[in-house]
Each structure stands twice: as C-alpha cells, then as structure tokens.
C-alpha cells in the first residue's frame, strides 16, 4: 500500500519497514530521500503540542526571567528524537543530538543579544527577534564548520 498517491517527491501513504539495525523505517520511500506526508503531519501535530505545552508553562510562571527558561526548553528535540530514533536508528538520533549541543550555544548567543536589544527598549520585539535569527544561523553554522565540518 506504499506510495499510492504521488506528487513529485512527496508521498501520501507510508508503510512500516524493519531495517537491519533494529530501527523501523516508517516510510519505505524515506530511505530514498523522499518525503512522506504522514510523517510531516505527525511531526507538525506532535511538535505543535509540545511547543505549545512548554509555552503555556512559561506563561504560567513568574518572574519573567524564570519563565524565560521555558523559552529554551528542548521542545523540538522532545517531539523529534523519539520518532527519529524509531525510524532512522539510535545512532542517527545520537548524531543529531551532538549537533544540537552546538545549536544550543548559538541559541544562547541569540537570546543574549535579543535580551540586550529589548531591555534597552529601542526596537520592538517582533523585528528584533526575527532579524536576530541571522545571529543564530551564523553562530550555529560557524560552530558546526569549526567543530564538525572539518572532521
């Protein structure tokens, strides 16, 4: 029943396939670098729920600096890692987690710059947080290149 409906590289029907290393490939086409829509929908729902839950938890807490801790909660990782480990294998998910360490350093720089800019009160929150995403990209990919890219 795999891949009955096709739209370019995107497929709507997936079937679980056991792989050699004990992982279960949710979509037989995923191994060929193609995308399964069920997988995307599942990620959107789980990711949306986990991110919203942490966001709600942050909104409930006072003071604001403490609530801010939940802005750096591992919400995407929690929504993704179990699914990735199940489909691609634990080694694959472990490699993702190694890169996540670098991403978290980039997040720290981004959040610090955003906090300094906003506390000074010159710029509104939306453009500040949106444009400062460039800082995250520069730091994350810069660190990746220095630490992992040359290996």
């Amino acid at each position: 029943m795999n891949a009955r409906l096709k739209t370019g590289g995107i497929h709507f029907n997936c079937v679980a396939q056991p792989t050699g290393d004990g992982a279960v490939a949710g979509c037989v086409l995923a191994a060929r670098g193609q995308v399964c829509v069920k997988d995307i929908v599942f990620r959107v729902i789980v990711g949306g729920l986990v991110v919203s839950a942490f966001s709600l938890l942050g909104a409930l807490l006072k003071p604001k600096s403490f609530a801010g801790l939940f802005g750096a909660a591992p919400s995407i990782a929690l929504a993704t890692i179990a699914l990735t480990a199940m489909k691609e294998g634990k080694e694959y998910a472990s490699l993702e987690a190694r890169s996540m360490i670098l991403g978290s350093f980039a997040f720290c720089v981004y959040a610090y710059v955003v906090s300094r800019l906003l506390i000074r009160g010159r710029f509104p929150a939306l453009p500040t947080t949106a444009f400062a995403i460039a800082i995250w990209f520069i730091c994350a990919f810069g660190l990746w290149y220095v630490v992992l890219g040359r290996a």
Partner: protein
Amino acid sequence: MKFKIDTSEIAESKLYEYVLRFVFGGTVTAMTGLIAKRYGPEIGGLFLAFPAILPATATLIEKHEKEKKERSGKNGTARGRKAAGVDAAGAAMGCAGLAVFALIVWQILPNSSSGFTLVTATVAWLIVAVSVWLIREKLWRGLARRFRSSHHRRRALRRPVSSIHRRIK
C-alpha cells in the same frame, strides 16, 4: 526571589495566540525533520536547538505588558520591550540546560531506550536550567547588596567632610 504560578496571563491570552504557538512549533518541528532528511543528521541536529518559541513568546509578552500599562493610562511601550527582554535573558540562561539535554542524549541514547534517555535528559535540563537561574539570582542580588552598602558607606564617610565645609563657609 521565589518563583510562583500566575494564571492571570492565561486568562488574558486569546485563542489565536495559542494557535500561533501551535502552528509555529509544529512548522519548525516538521522543518527540522525535512532538513535532517535532506542534509543529514549533523545539519538537522542544529535545528533541534532552533529558537522556536522565543519570537512568538517575546512578541506576546510585549503586547500583554503594553496593554496592562496602557489600561492605567500610561505608555507601556518601554515596559513591554523590557519585559520581553527579561524573558529572553531567562532563555539565555536556559540554554545551559539545553546543552546538557543534548549531551545526555548524545552519550546515552545509543545504549539505552529512547524513553529512558528522554526522561533523564529532560530532568537534567530542568535541574541545570533552574540551578543556573538560582545562582545568577543569588549572585546578582549579592552584588547589588554589596554595591548598595559600599555606596552608603562612601556617602556616610563623605557627609562629615561636606558638613565641615558648609560650616567653614
């Protein structure tokens, strides 16, 4: 300073704000999966620490604080931005926990079950993030107290001299 639970913020939030968070979080999670599939786990893993909630949260905090201040007839722009900035400073502190979460997953996932790994890493994230916050609060308050007391001491030492000067004049 102690932390507490305040439900008034939830009462102020509108439905579209929850929908916005859900859509934003879901989109970023799905994008992370697609990036990992296209460019491999080493690039995809970077996006597991992508600031997914922060822009939406900061914007909503700014809006709520501004509205609160404007209800009392004052301009709340500066207060709103400052509150969003304080929230972002908290997120910067929370990144230490995020790095520890990733470190634990990287080290123990290949030899343990996913459930055990994620529970252990999440508990570690919470402990580290809260500890960093508490240490920073204690240090900050300690430094502020020390600065205040030294400032008062300097003023107290200066006072008799100035009063003598006044008397001479």
